[in-house]
């Protein structure tokens, strides 16, 4: 489980792992499975409508989490498969890789899920996701006009995220 020291943005964001823009898309979900933000930079293949796509993505993460919680080879008491778990409970996962993409996943203690889909050969992005979470706290949560649980419509946040992800490997 991740714990975050403070909400201040660290003075030096994690160093990019390579050059060029490798990111495909970014999702932010809240704990109820509502997609707060969807950004897309490079997605040639689209098979589903965006709503279906978000549902499928949330379902995949939810099921993968219950799979890893049940499969965890280091804990003795794992409970039953498919029982919903609170954020931070049980064994979670931080990334998976296929031959065409890599998906990095982070869940905050409040159940905010940040998903970044990148080129399969990108390195560890856990620090970058934490940085994006900090951006979310700074630009969205601290925005007095934002009501929690609604889709994010904050130009400044979108711009900062775009800029950060472009600088990323």
């Amino acid at each position, binding site marked *: *489980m*991740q*714990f975050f020291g403070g909400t201040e943005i660290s003075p030096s964001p994690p160093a990019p792992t390579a050059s060029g823009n490798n990111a*495909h*898309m970014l999702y932010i979900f809240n704990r109820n499975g509502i997609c707060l933000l969807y950004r897309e930079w*490079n*997605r*040639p*293949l689209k*098979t*589903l409508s965006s709503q279906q*796509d978000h549902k*499928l*993505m949330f*379902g*995949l993460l939810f*099921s*993968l989490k*219950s*799979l*890893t919680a*049940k*499969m*965890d*080879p*280091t*804990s*003795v*008491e*794992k409970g039953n*498969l498919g029982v919903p778990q609170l954020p931070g409970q049980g*064994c*979670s*996962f*931080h*990334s*998976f*890789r*296929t*031959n*065409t*993409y890599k*998906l990095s996943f982070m869940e905050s203690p409040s159940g905010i899920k940040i998903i970044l*889909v990148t080129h399969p050969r990108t*390195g560890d992005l*856990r620090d970058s996701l934490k940085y994006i979470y900090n951006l979310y706290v700074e630009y969205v949560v601290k925005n007095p006009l934002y009501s929690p649980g609604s889709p994010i419509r904050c130009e400044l946040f979108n711009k900062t995220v775009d800029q950060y992800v472009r600088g990323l490997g």
Partner: protein
Amino acid sequence: MPSALGEEPNTLSALGRRSSKADEKRQRHTPLLETQSNKQTMAAVYSLYIINKSGGLIFYKDYGSAGRMDTNDTLRLASLWHSMHAISQQLSPVSGCSGIELLQADTFDLHCFQSLTGTKFFVVCEPGTLHMESLLKHIYELYTDYVLKNPFYEMEMPIRCELFDINLAQAVQKDRVALLGR
């Protein structure tokens, strides 16, 4: 992630990265004592699953994970993995996706290999374990040799072949030895 990965000695974090051939050689030549102190007595591979093309579990072997799982649990996990593998293909931003190859969880790595006929082999191992792709390929070879060429084996049915078991035990053992740097 406060401690688990962060405090491991440098060698382990280096193991986690995908390394070149030269790096692998260097790993193999590290003195035995040093590597053993990192690895303790833990098995590198926790368990192995083989699922047929429709998601049914046809082989499961446990190599010492904590907390026993009953047969129903392993069957459920196997079919759940089959669906997750299929969904991950749907979500690909680029065409030509063939499903999850590596899942990195907090306490384990899951490496999956899918053969051309749709049979999936996956191992659950310690985070950052190397050589798992080659182990899976080797297990696939054993499967073709000792299971598919067995005249009494029925396709898509659970595997009960003594020779396969023996050779598999050797392969996993050998891999453990390679990891210890011998």
